[in-house]
């Protein structure tokens, strides 16, 4: 039963990672690609790590510290990821990179 849950969580996490990666490749500019990158390291990482924590409980119940370390990993990423994303967007805006807009929206503005 718990085995199935572990497999489901890990697969869902990897599906999110796959979707994020495909999104990064398909989107038109740096700003929109960052949105997809943010998807990877919030929910994708959380689900994947939860799967790993459950797996650890199942196969090595005494190694509680390892489980705490895995959860700590998500905490660190939760703090650093928005900072890094904001730094990249800020650098782009300061360097003068114009955000991509829909072509018809651009025509309407002109």
């Amino acid at each position: 039963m718990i085995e199935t849950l572990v497999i489901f969580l890990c697969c869902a996490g990897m599906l999110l990672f796959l979707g994020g990666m495909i999104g990064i490749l398909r989107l038109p500019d740096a700003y929109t690609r960052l949105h997809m990158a943010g998807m990877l390291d919030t929910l994708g990482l959380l689900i994947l790590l939860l799967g790993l924590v459950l797996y650890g409980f199942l196969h090595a119940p005494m190694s509680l510290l390892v489980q705490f370390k895995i959860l700590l990993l998500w905490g660190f990423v939760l703090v650093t990821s928005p900072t890094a994303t904001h730094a990249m967007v800020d650098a782009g805006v300061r360097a003068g990179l114009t955000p991509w807009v829909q072509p018809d929206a651009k025509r309407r503005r002109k």
Partner: protein
Amino acid sequence: MEQMTDTVRVVRTGEPVKVKPRRYDALISFVLRFLMLFVTWLILSGMFDAFHVSLGVACSAFVTWLSADIFPPEVRRFRKLRSLWLLTLYVPWLVWEIAKCNIRMLFLAFDPKLNDKIAPRIVTFKTGLRNELALTFLANSITMTPGTITVSIDERGYVSVHAFDEVSAAGLPGDMEKKIKAIFEEA
């Protein structure tokens, strides 16, 4: 797009109100930070013999002392239990919001007409928040939610956000600002 400059001119009417920390604020702040560092040390080291634990105590105390200038005591905000309770409620709520946005983004990523459905734009709005910690909370929460990234935020409360499509632009600033306002009691 106009170039952004580093200097933000702030017009203040009158002197800014300096709140002096109460006598126990500094102590509570030190103790909390020390405990946080020490628990992290225990989890990461995983050795509970006298030598390693005392090493952890020494290191945590040293770092607490070093960081006194970087994190000045500001426990006053969280002295009321209600603030702490609201903060504890806020975290699961944020994770749930992030999850909902993530799933919408996942469907978008596999959409064959992805580039027709997105409508990236920069949205600007003004919040009522003034406290620096509250503004940091707001900016980080916005960036963490997929579909919105904070471009800039300043102490007058002007926020500009890069939104991914119309749905994520419509959700700004929304409940997030209200909840943070309630936590920091800036009604």
